[in-house]
């Protein structure tokens, strides 16, 4: 479908991560999913305390270690070396998912294949031909976090919309997504469906609607 549309200037992954980071209030406990969501930590202004959780049992995750300062016993969910902030804590996997499933986490930022207008999320499997299905903590985060924000491109590489009326891929969680940050827009998921909150610089409501597979409402 993109072939018929005027080319637009979309945001980079880093710009998307920065846009999302700017909306996280001080004091929130936040889990960042593997992949692009991990970048969000780099853009939370250091004057604002946000506490990052890692599903393998850490609260108070800090930035990447400096060259030569690796602590070999500290990794995040994406198996990358990390640091801990002063005030950080460690615990086992049952407690780590207890705090997710018990509704204590303010926000989970996840990647996505598709989000439906009712908040359904598909992000763990591309279906029957998936060679080795893997789910990790996505279903727990989707069901348990107070807010679920999805950070993803607005369309697939071939231009198909990823914001849809109904997900075609296997679901991760039902009705859980509350907001979507894409490379062209910020969209809330509300009882009436998708509501456009913001667009990338220079884009219009119509630009975003043309690339969305469901009705977009004005805020």
């Amino acid at each position: 479908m993109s072939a018929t549309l005027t080319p637009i200037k979309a945001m980079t992954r880093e710009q998307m991560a920065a846009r999302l980071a700017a909306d996280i209030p001080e004091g929130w406990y936040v889990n960042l999913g593997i992949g692009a969501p991990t970048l969000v930590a780099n853009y939370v202004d250091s004057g604002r305390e946000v506490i990052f959780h890692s599903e393998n049992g850490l609260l108070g995750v800090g930035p990447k270690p400096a060259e030569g300062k690796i602590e070999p016993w500290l990794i995040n969910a994406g198996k990358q070396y990390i640091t801990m902030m002063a005030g950080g804590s460690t615990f086992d996997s049952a407690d780590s998912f207890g705090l997710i499933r018990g509704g204590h986490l303010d926000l989970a930022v996840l990647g996505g294949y598709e989000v439906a207008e009712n908040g359904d999320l598909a992000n763990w499997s591309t279906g029957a031909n998936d060679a080795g299905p893997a789910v990790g903590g996505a279903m727990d985060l989707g069901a348990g976090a107070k807010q679920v924000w999805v950070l993803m491109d607005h369309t697939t590489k071939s231009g198909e919309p990823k914001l849809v009326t109904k997900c075609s891929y296997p679901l991760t969680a039902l009705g859980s997504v509350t907001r979507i940050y894409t490379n062209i827009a910020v969209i809330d998921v509300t009882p009436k469906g998708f509501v456009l909150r913001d667009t990338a610089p220079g884009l219009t409501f119509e630009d975003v609607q043309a690339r969305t597979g469901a009705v977009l409402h004005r805020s």
Partner: protein
Amino acid sequence: MIDKFVPDIATAIAGIHDGARIMIGGFGAIGLPNQLIDAVAETGVKELTLIANNAGAAFGGLAMLLKTGAVRKVVCSYPRSAGSTLFEDLYRDGKIELELVPQGTLAERIRAASAGVPAFFTPTAAGTQLAHGKETREINGKLCVLEHAIFADFALLECWQADRWGNLTYRLAGRNFNPIMAGAAKLTIVQAQHKVELGEIAPDDVMTPGIYVNRVVHVPYGDPVL
């Protein structure tokens, strides 16, 4: 005198048999009892069921167990591993059975086994493929799935410090699934980086009380490598 330390790895893993259900601690490469797994792989046992968060290891004993066909079934949340398609290849060829479990449900099912809770309801996975065939119930307005405790014959774990009563500590991200698996198996076997005297771990600092632990072997291999 109680002394749960055994002299060597072979003694630690003695009795692991064909068809055993084995829990393996660790998240990624951290807190993984590599030397115990290597030794199990070398015994040639087969028809194993492995319960572990990441069962798709690229190298080491886990990979060897998969490669040699010793594993019949894997229960895990994330069977993928960067740089390896070993698990995917076996799975696609129908040579291994997979029970894919959301990570929090996996942890809670193991904790439930440890705590004598036979089953519980959770909203995680409700309405998804991973809840197919499972009993559901609406509780407090939320659709929930009945999940059963996961028990095992053996747990292979790694800790940071251990004393002769089997009290354990873990280091940073090395804790993960290790403490909860300690209580969910009939026989819990631990490899310890550091052997300490009774009382060196203060009561408030014990992370796994020795009641859950059967055998400990001192394996000071150093730092894990990703």
